[in-house]
């Protein structure tokens, strides 16, 4: 596999509802290499989540090309995409999205249910992942018995338990206090540095973005060239 993990060409996503068209993402060219830590920034509605969802194959592009881990996502059917996502992607949500009726270790074990691992191995892997995020002593706590920061750490454990190539996070610190946010960011940074995971993180927060090696800006569906930010483009009369 080449070093390029994510590669998009003229990637466009258009939402059509009745006669109402929204171009959420227009002609985005993106290249992310193995081991990168990329932060996607931009104002609300600029298309950050849309881009992340296309990378995770949670949605299909309207036009353009997208290859993730060498796979042309448009070539896969629904079932194949589900399997592909289980193997290659770890996704972290802003609102944690843990299953309330399952405890921490059961939540983390869940994606392993789709692998060939035996029950005992699944539990061992889940415990290892939870220990890694510092929750080795909270294995049997239910989400409602955990703080927001702890919930997000369980979600991180769930995202990394399958040992995915790519970790995608949509505003992972958006619902957290400063202390918890710091813990989560440190953890993502460790996953990137120590375990060599490629991370793409959407964020509003410049402090969060500072953990990333690369920061990319989106503005009204346009992915700005690296190094340019919204303020810069706003000062250019002919930019959009």
């Amino acid at each position, binding site marked *: 596999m080449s070093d390029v993990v994510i590669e998009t060409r003229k990637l466009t996503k258009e939402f059509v509802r009745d006669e109402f068209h929204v171009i959420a993402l227009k002609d985005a060219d993106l290249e992310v290499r193995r081991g990168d830590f990329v932060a996607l920034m931009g104002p609300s509605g600029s298309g950050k989540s849309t881009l992340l*969802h296309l990378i*995770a194959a*949670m*949605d299909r592009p309207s036009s353009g090309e997208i290859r993730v881990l060498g796979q042309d996502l448009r070539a896969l059917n*629904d*079932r194949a995409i*589900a*399997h592909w*996502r*289980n*193997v290659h992607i770890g*996704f972290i*949500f802003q*609102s944690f*999205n843990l*299953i*309330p*009726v*399952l405890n921490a270790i*059961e939540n983390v074990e*869940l*994606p392993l*249910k*789709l692998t060939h691992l035996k029950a005992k191995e699944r539990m061992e892997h889940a415990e290892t992942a939870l220990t890694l995020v510092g929750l080795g002593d909270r294995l049997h706590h239910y989400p409602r018995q955990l703080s927001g920061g702890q919930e997000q750490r369980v979600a991180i454990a*769930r995202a990394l338990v399958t040992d995915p190539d790519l970790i995608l996070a949509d505003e992972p610190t958006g619902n957290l206090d400063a202390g918890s946010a710091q813990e989560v960011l440190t953890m993502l940074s460790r996953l990137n540095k120590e375990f060599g995971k490629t991370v793409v993180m959407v964020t509003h927060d410049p402090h969060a973005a500072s953990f990333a090696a690369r920061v990319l800006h989106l503005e009204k569906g346009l992915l700005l060239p690296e190094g340019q930010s919204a303020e810069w483009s706003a000062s250019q009369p002919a930019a959009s």
Partner: protein
Amino acid sequence: MAIPLTYNFRNLVVRKTTTVMTALGIALTVAVLLSVLALLSGLRTAFASTGDPRQVLILRKGATAELNSGITRDVFQDIKFKPGIARDSSGQPMASLEMVTVINLPSVDSPQGMNLTLRGLLPLGVQMRGLKILEGRWFETGQREVVVGKSIARRYPGARLHHQLRFGKGVWEVVGVMDGGESAVNSEIFGDLGQVSSDFNRQDGLSSVLVRAADSSVVPALINSLNDDQKLNVTAQTERSYYDAQTSSGAPLQFLGVFVSVIMAVGSSFAAMNTMYAAVARRSMEIGTLRVLGFSRGSILLSFLAESLLLSVLGGLLGCVLVLPLNNVSTGIGNFVTFSEIAFNFRVTPQIMLYGILFAMFMGAAGGLFPARMAARKEILTALREI
């Protein structure tokens, strides 16, 4: 491979009020069906255990039951010497002339009294039925004495041993209680043929003849020769097939019971559907999350279907528990052919309970299918956005 059942089970526990309400609806539906099935099963047992396959019951041609049949003593004499009839130890043909009528006895339960079958017969008839005496003794020829079936003794305090019954032309003494196993004989009163027929002025207007074939291989030939004899003008059939046909007295009840439970099942399925639609709506974000983790649409469908089935099995089990106390409760049913009471027990068998659970699962599947399909069809992003 699939989403674990724990997930569904715990969700049922979390929304326990809705779960209990829905399961209770299913349970009541199952209970209605099961009580009808248990009743029919008891009725069937009562009739099916009646009759010896070697024995042939003879009625007047055209009669459907002993009650509306008429046989004269002359006809009886002709029947008795048909070939193929077994002989008893004294060399007499095993043929029993009997008279059957319905008498009305006062009852505590019902102001109109209870209709009971009275059978006048000779000791040979008793012997041919292989009945046991539970208490007391058999009636004596020429005496105003009766022996009652054990169900009657149990259900009518007035018909216990040594009590007196008033019917026909006077008072009769209960001298014994007989045990007919699970057969319909338990709901009959036996008395001496001569006494009974004279009380009802039917010395020559008797009801039926029961004969025993020498062995079971000659039964068809015996039946044919009786049926074909124009002079006799009788219908013959095995005793067993006669009683099997009597099970039809349960048919209207069966129809009503099945009809009511089907209507209720439609209601319960909709209740289950409602519950499951609510669950799908409430867990929309979880559905989206599961899909992001890699679970397929098929897994989502199966998971919600499984949850609905789990819910319905719970209802089914509850339904079984509800009807279990009915087991061996004895009851009576008016026999629509003879217009007399047949007493028998409800029988809640394991097989019947299995039917109940399958019936419940059918409701669960019917109610769960559309919500599960809706859950599976959601797009990931739509599912994640709904709260």
